């Protein structure tokens, strides 16, 4: 009897480790979330430092779609894009430098994109909240490199409260990762200031499965 119980316990543990990890919410199947927000509430932030001051570039034009099976977040696929021309650093001349040939060359490379490739290190923080590492192809200035983002994803079922933002179920995504400017053939001088080699990118967005 003891052996049977031990075998049963080991089997349960093994199954729980190999089982799909996803949201435990009152919905199922494959869902597609659209992150286009006409009110510009989805935001990407680019943070950098110079010896003289910190620089924060923001874009409120984050667009993209992701698809996944609610019960298995490893099935997550999709991409996010940000128009380079939408970046704002709070100083007009610095924005002009940012879009110029020496920096992002917005004319030749109008978009910054992140394409999801795989999901790992999944941890369920709550029934509707998951943290994970999302590996993807990050493309900027015409160069594509693989990066790993620390991501927190929250699933909210449609309610009177969520309807104030958008119809349908909502998916809140917070992602953070770093990139090196030299990896993307971008020079690190802006208005005569040497910018730090590493840029911290943060994305905060909410998508709906009814758009």
């Amino acid at each position, binding site marked *: 009897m003891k052996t049977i119980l031990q075998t049963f316990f080991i089997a349960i543990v093994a199954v729980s480790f190999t089982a799909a990890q996803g949201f435990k919410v009152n919905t199922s199947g494959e869902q597609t979330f659209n992150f286009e927000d006409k009110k510009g509430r989805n935001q990407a932030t680019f943070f950098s430092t110079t010896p003289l001051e910190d620089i924060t570039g923001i874009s409120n034009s984050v667009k993209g779609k992701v698809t996944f099976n609610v019960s298995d977040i490893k099935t997550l696929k999709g991409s996010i894009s940000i128009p380079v021309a939408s970046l704002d650093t709070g100083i007009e001349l610095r924005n002009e430098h940012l879009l110029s040939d020496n920096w992002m060359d917005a004319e030749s490379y109008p978009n910054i994109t992140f394409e999801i490739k795989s999901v790992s290190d999944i941890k369920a923080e709550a029934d509707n909240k998951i943290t994970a590492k999302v590996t993807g192809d990050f493309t900027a200035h015409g160069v594509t490199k693989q990066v790993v983002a620390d991501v927190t994803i929250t699933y909210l079922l449609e309610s009177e409260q969520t309807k104030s933002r958008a119809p349908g179920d909502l998916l809140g995504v917070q992602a953070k990762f770093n990139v090196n400017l030299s990896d993307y053939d971008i020079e690190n001088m802006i208005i005569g200031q040497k910018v730090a080699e590493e840029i911290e990118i*943060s994305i905060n967005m909410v998508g709906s499965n009814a758009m």
Partner: protein
Amino acid sequence: MNTKQKNVVTLGIILIIVTFIIWLLSGGDFFTKTQILVEKETTELDKMLGVEPQKEYEDKFVFGLVPPGIVATAEMISASTISALILLVSGILFFKYKTKNKMETI
């Protein structure tokens, strides 16, 4: 150096010192700015969705040390441009009074 020239030099130095004190009291930013980054208030729904507060650039003048390039806007108002202007006016007055002094001697 006559009395008027001494007064011009003294006033010029005082004004430049005052400009730099104002710059330091304004936060000591390197660049003059016409916008600052602020965080919007987080809604209850944002908290439930686990997203950070949205940031935005809000119109506000920040007196900096230097302008962020040669621009014909309020961004030109900085400690360095005002000091340069004070130096220029002081220099002009200094030489103006020097000439008058010579004329008076003749």
